[in-house]
């Protein structure tokens, strides 16, 4: 029990983000190496179904804190409940996804417990009983491995999609431990007045496929061509800083050092030269396809497949080929 691996399950208003359970896979591997168990914890209002689903992805026990005060996602209340759980059970390590929600809760809990944490980890290993956490720094130009010898639990946020999603097995079940913990409304400094749902259909961070555009698109209209390919592939639309700064697409879509870090299986970069700040956000994609008119563009040094040409001709051609081959 004392050296268990705990995983924070992300959700919002009972709606489960598709990748909420992804950390149970690496959690299980770490628990095996530590000779312990992987447990999940869920905070919210009416989260029984989410707790059950955590067993399908490998949790051996699920800890639940429920209450009206936890309705929706409230970072402050969730951090207090997390601090309570981690302080009470003192697992070896607690894993959070390095999303806005996961980072908020992890950071506030670590500070309340009085120690540092490792953020945005891209690799986790148990080495002689010690947990080694690797993260990218300086725009991915360096990888830094850290250990946390003084903190228990060790708190880690993990880059979404850094590890494979575990297989789902609906025959699995286990023990749900309900904890009675509450926060008085008056003890909270913040209140969510409203949630405005994003107009963007597919979240960049969760996407398996991203089609991105840069300065080389030449104008806002270029994104219409990009979007056609993205729609065909069920992909998210991304952009470089140049395209965002030109006002062609929203800041929410920016990939890179001052935008989002993504790890899709396929990243198709159209009219993107490949500045280091952009590469920082996408260089860990499994497969990068670069389309650019300039054969000297640095993106080609990082691309799995490079196509030297005008995206206005290449992208519609790809759409045409996919249409035939995928029977769409």
């Amino acid at each position, binding site marked *: 029990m004392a050296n268990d691996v705990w995983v924070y399950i992300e959700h919002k208003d009972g709606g489960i*983000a598709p990748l909420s359970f992804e950390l149970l896979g690496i959690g299980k591997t770490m628990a095996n190496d530590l000779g312990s168990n992987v447990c999940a914890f869920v905070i919210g209002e009416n989260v029984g179904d989410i707790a059950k689903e955590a067993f399908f992805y490998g949790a051996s026990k699920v800890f639940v804190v429920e209450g009206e005060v936890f309705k929706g996602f409230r970072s402050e209340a969730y951090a207090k409940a997390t601090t309570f759980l981690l302080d009470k059970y003192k697992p070896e390590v607690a894993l959070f996804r390095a999303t806005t*929600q996961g*980072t908020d809760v992890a950071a506030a809990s*670590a500070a309340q417990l009085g120690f540092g944490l490792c953020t*945005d980890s891209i690799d986790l290993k148990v080495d002689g009983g010690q947990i080694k956490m690797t993260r990218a720094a300086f725009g991915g130009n360096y990888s830094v491995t850290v250990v946390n010898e003084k903190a228990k639990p060790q708190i880690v946020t993990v880059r979404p999609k850094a590890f494979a999603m575990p297989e789902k097995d609906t025959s699995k079940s286990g023990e749900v431990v309900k904890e009675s913990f509450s926060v008085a409304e008056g003890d909270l400094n913040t209140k969510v007045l409203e949630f405005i749902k994003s107009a963007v259909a597919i979240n960049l961070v969760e996407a398996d*496929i991203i089609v991105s555009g840069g300065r080389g698109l030449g104008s806002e209209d270029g994104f219409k061509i990009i979007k056609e390919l993205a729609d065909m592939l069920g992909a998210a639309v991304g952009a470089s800083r140049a395209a965002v700064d030109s006002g062609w697409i929203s800041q929410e879509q920016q990939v890179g050092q001052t935008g989002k870090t993504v790890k899709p299986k396929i990243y198709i970069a159209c009219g993107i030269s490949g500045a280091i700040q952009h590469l920082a956000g996408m260089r860990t994609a499994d497969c990068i396809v670069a389309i650019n008119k300039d054969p000297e563009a640095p993106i080609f040094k*990082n691309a*799995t497949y490079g196509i*030297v040409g005008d995206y206005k001709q290449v992208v519609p051609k790809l759409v045409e080929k996919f249409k035939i081959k995928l029977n769409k």
Partner: protein
Amino acid sequence: MKIVVCIKQVPDTEAEIKWDIPKGVLKRDSIDTITNPFDEFALEEALLTRENHDGDIVAISMGPEKANDVLRNALALTVNEVYRLTDDAFAGSDTFGTASVLAAGIKKIGDADIIFCGKQSTDGSTGVVGAEIASILGYSPLTYVSKIRQIDAANKKIIVERVIEGGTEVVEAKLPAIVSVIKGINEPRLPNLMGIRKAAKVAIPEWNAGDLGVDKGKVGTAGSSTKVVEIAVPPPRGAGEILKGEIEDVANIVTDKLIDMKVIK
């Protein structure tokens, strides 16, 4: 209103980074530095807030002497006061150590209503120091803020928009609050020549661990719980394949290769 803004000097994003590998720390003295790009948005938001609500802005930075450059830039942008938080004991602080020192600085300034900071730095990129400061001080944590809708200084309230997964949250919070801002919240202004000249002459006050009442054993390399054990240059991506030939053939090849990955459904 008393506004505090936390700023950090970071290596120029174009600069070559050098590490002191045995110590696991960055060799900051040999690198061109700039104000962390996210902190420029924090500074601008502080200036806009002062324009709308009066008050004073105090900018603080934790760092070695070179951090004076970013504080001078803040002075040139007309912030009212600056302090550099510096002590040999602060070197090598992890996120909690850094947040503890900044929190001590904010407490020493006293009576702050709003503390602005950037979402993250472009060097360490941990993105948690703002949330940790809020947690340490018990102030309202407002992270990923994309817009300030309203500040009610008399009733000590603020309403902001913050971008989280799946959309935007409108949050009302009590002041004091830590507001960490994202790119796009504003267009940072540039200092004018007169401001730069004036700022160049100002002596920048320093606060050390003793001034701040910070326990040296709890910050820096000594106090940090996380320790760097290895720094490596990630292997370069394998040399890619440039697909040459007629567009028809190239499109055929690449679509086949992508379909073979079994990711496209």
